[in-house]
């Protein structure tokens, strides 16, 4: 039987690579931020640690790292398809839909914490945590669907 029936080559589309990159970057950026802030706290309560600069650097570095990684990934493996089709768009929408729930949770939590007079440290950090969870959950969804079945409801 012809070899065309059993193509085993695993080449990801650019959109699948982007999902992987954004997943890894989100985990690394948030993990790095947590390590830095807990290190600065040095045994004190976390809310007393200087966090603002680390948070802004973490967000900025994540954006730059994702852009650079996507450019490099496209240049390193030019065989990978750069096209974006209807399946990519459907998977993208599904991932964004799943991840968006955490953005809403973060916004509502931050609003309630502000009303209740919580320290700014906790308000800023609950928002960042939910952004990170949104990126992780959304991109995990995309990767799982790219690797497996597109769900039917």
């Amino acid at each position, binding site marked *: 039987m*012809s070899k*065309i*029936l059993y*193509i085993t080559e695993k080449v990801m589309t650019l959109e*699948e690579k982007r999902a992987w990159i954004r997943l890894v970057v989100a985990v690394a950026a948030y993990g790095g931020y947590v390590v830095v802030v807990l290190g600065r706290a040095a045994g004190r309560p976390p809310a007393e640690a200087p966090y603002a600069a680390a948070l802004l650097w973490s967000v900025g570095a994540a954006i730059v790292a994702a852009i650079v990684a996507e450019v490099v990934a496209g240049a390193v493996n030019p065989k990978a398809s750069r*096209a974006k*089709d*209807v*399946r990519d768009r459907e998977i993208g929408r599904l991932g964004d839909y799943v991840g968006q729930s955490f953005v809403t949770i973060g916004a509502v939590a931050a609003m309630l914490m502000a009303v209740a007079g919580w320290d700014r440290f906790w308000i800023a950090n609950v928002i960042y945590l939910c952004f990170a969870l949104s990126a992780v959950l959304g991109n995990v969804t995309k990767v799982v669907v790219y690797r497996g079945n*597109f769900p039917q409801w």
Partner: protein
Amino acid sequence: MVKPTRVTNRIRALRFAHDEMTQAELAERIGVTRQTVIAIEQGRYSPSLEIAFQIAHVFKVPLEEVFQYPGSQEETT
């Protein structure tokens, strides 16, 4: 509830019958990525009606010869 698609297809056999058309050639002719053709062939993705008709047109066969769906009798048994 999330469940896998019940749509099956004969794309692999039809490609073989059409001069061993590659997945890349089919993908190019219907305007999708090769990964999408692979996912459709393996039953991991149900294509839109438009893509389904495009695939049938490429092979010059009716839609039913490319895609199948279990009948209602089978569902109730």
